[in-house]
């Protein structure tokens, strides 16, 4: 970022450019850190914008450039997070049988399409609209007054919980939409191979309209957990634990694939393409460089913090992948590829909450623990009879809880989090534990309830013969891989004449 000499006399709060690189981060919630940022930035931006409206040219240009650069940042990182949908599609397709690939891809495409509409219409309002400590009640279809990109005390509108970031409303919406899409698509992998497509569509609508949004309101919408001081920078709990425990609720009600558990044995049902899994993980890793650093929702005042987040994100992923590699080697006799991939993702999930608040060595520790627990957790869910072909419950649910708790342990007061190991006491840690446990439990319970209702009404599992033959043909009348095979050519009567 190039330094600029402001030609307008800055007000008493000080110029934005003067912020130290490791300034208190923009927490993704209404917190002390956020309030500190608002005190620094809001009067400046507001004054500059007002001055701009009054026709003072140099101040106007600075404010416009600030908003423009921040908007560019939010939209580019949002596009990176969007591209994680491709990563999820590849990982999930690779870990399923070839006969179910079209179905998994349909579910992946559908849940983002559903999210794009449902979150625009209702979800965003539930999550970020002004309302109560439980849910938002304003801003349906993005309507209602909103003076974005004005921030802080200069902001007037129905989305006060997002008034700390100085970008236009539509940019805020798009960025939050791709996060909702991420949470929505976590579940599809865990229930692959046996779920009825219409049931999944209904679930997608409910998830992105109500469950993700209302739970998210508690943390990022200014709700009761935010008011208690709960922190979750980019969503270890809000996105990943919600998705992971929703996956648990769905998979538990749905039941395992036929033949998966027999006479106390866990039967391996291998995925069909490990190349897809590897590519998918790399795409998700790349997307996470939008997911975590983008959650500053601004870069002009935050460039040092953004760089820190890139580092903590990456190093946690690497440590977690290595930990999973070693643990799977010790446990199963050989380094297991798909477990290593799951470990990588678990590290990314775990660092998502603490990424802005911890040092790089702490990020290594958080990743190491995440990688270990995911390898240990996956067989546990199998032992419980919960069939999860992709390990979503362990990677997103369990690691998401760990990441949130890790923030309570490793958070640095200088960065805005009173972590236990930094001498901040146990109060913040207890809030973190409370928040992640409550949200995970509500996600699990509400989704389990929903699938129970769907089971009793429209039915949630395909027929056994459809499951054995593959959902691609049964649900979509198509196959993912059609060989150029003379043996399959249709008989055309009269062709021999």
């Amino acid at each position, binding site marked *: 970022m190039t330094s600029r000499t402001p030609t307008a006399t800055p007000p008493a709060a000080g110029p934005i450019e003067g912020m130290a690189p490791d300034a208190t981060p923009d927490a993704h919630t209404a917190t002390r850190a956020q309030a500190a940022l608002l005190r620094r930035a809001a009067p400046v931006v507001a004054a500059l914008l007002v001055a701009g409206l009054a026709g003072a040219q140099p101040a106007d240009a600075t404010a416009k450039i600030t908003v423009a650069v921040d908007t560019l940042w939010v939209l580019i990182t949002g596009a990176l997070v969007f591209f994680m949908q491709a990563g999820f599609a590849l990982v999930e397709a690779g870990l399923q049988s070839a006969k179910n690939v079209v179905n998994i891809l349909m579910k992946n495409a559908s849940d983002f399409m559903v999210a794009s509409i449902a979150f625009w219409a209702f979800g965003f309002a539930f999550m970020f609209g002004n309302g109560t400590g439980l849910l938002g009640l304003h801003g349906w279809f993005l309507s209602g007054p909103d003076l974005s990109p004005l921030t802080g005390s200069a902001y007037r509108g129905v989305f006060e919980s997002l008034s700390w970031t100085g970008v236009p409303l539509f940019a805020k919406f798009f960025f939050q939409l791709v996060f909702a899409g991420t949470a929505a698509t976590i579940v599809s992998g865990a229930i692959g191979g046996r779920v009825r497509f219409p049931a999944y569509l209904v679930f997608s609508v409910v998830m992105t309209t109500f469950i993700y949004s209302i739970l998210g309101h508690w943390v990022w919408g200014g709700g009761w957990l935010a008011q208690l001081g709960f922190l979750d920078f980019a969503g270890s709990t809000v996105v990943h634990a919600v998705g992971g425990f929703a996956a648990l609720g769905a998979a538990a009600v749905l039941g395992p694939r036929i033949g998966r558990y027999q006479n106390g*044995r866990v*039967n*391996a049902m291998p995925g069909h393409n490990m190349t897809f899994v590897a590519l998918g993980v790399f795409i998700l890793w790349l997307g996470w460089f939008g997911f975590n650093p983008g959650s500053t929702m601004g870069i002009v005042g935050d460039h040092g913090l953004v760089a820190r987040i890139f580092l903590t994100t990456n190093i946690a992923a690497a440590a977690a992948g290595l930990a999973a590699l070693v643990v799977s080697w010790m446990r199963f006799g*050989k380094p297991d590829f*798909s*477990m290593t991939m799951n470990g990588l993702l678990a590290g990314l999930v775990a660092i998502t909450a603490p990424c802005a608040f911890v040092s790089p060595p702490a990020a290594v520790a958080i990743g190491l623990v995440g990688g270990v627990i995911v390898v240990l957790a*996956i*067989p546990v869910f199998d032992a419980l009879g919960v069939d999860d072909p992709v390990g979503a419950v362990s990677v997103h649910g369990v690691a998401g809880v760990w990441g949130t708790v890790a923030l309570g342990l490793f958070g640095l007061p200088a960065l805005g989090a009173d972590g236990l190991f930094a001498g901040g006491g146990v109060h913040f840690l207890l809030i973190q534990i409370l928040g992640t446990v409550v949200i995970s439990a509500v996600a699990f319970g509400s989704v389990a309830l929903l699938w129970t209702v769907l089971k009793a009404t429209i039915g949630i599992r395909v027929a056994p013969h459809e499951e054995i033959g593959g959902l691609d043909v049964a649900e979509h009348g198509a196959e993912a891989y059609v060989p150029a095979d003379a043996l399959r050519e249709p008989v055309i009567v009269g062709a021999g004449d």
Partner: protein
Amino acid sequence: MKLITAFVRPERLPAVKEALFKAGVQGLTLNRVSGHGGQAAVHEQYRGSTFLVEFHEKVQLTIAVSDAFVAPTIDAIVRSARTGEVGDGKIFVQPLERVVRIRTGEEDAEALTPVGAPLAASI
């Protein structure tokens, strides 16, 4: 005339083909199969569960030859497909009653005589 069916390791197939072409045998049909005759089962593991793979990939060759070519064919296959490990495969020889070439209607020995330049010349 005899119908020779041979099961060999897939990785030995290029060597088997070369040996057969050099012996003057060109007409053959190949198939991918799974087989088991005494080879040990392999333990694989996937995400914490182990499973046994008892049947192993093999290639099946089906060759129709006149009586004079039976011994050279068997000799060529045995020499090129043998590794000395369990799982090298087997050869079955069955009597063949009648052979017809579809293009011309030729039968028996004429049907088994190869058409065109010997493939061994191009190796």
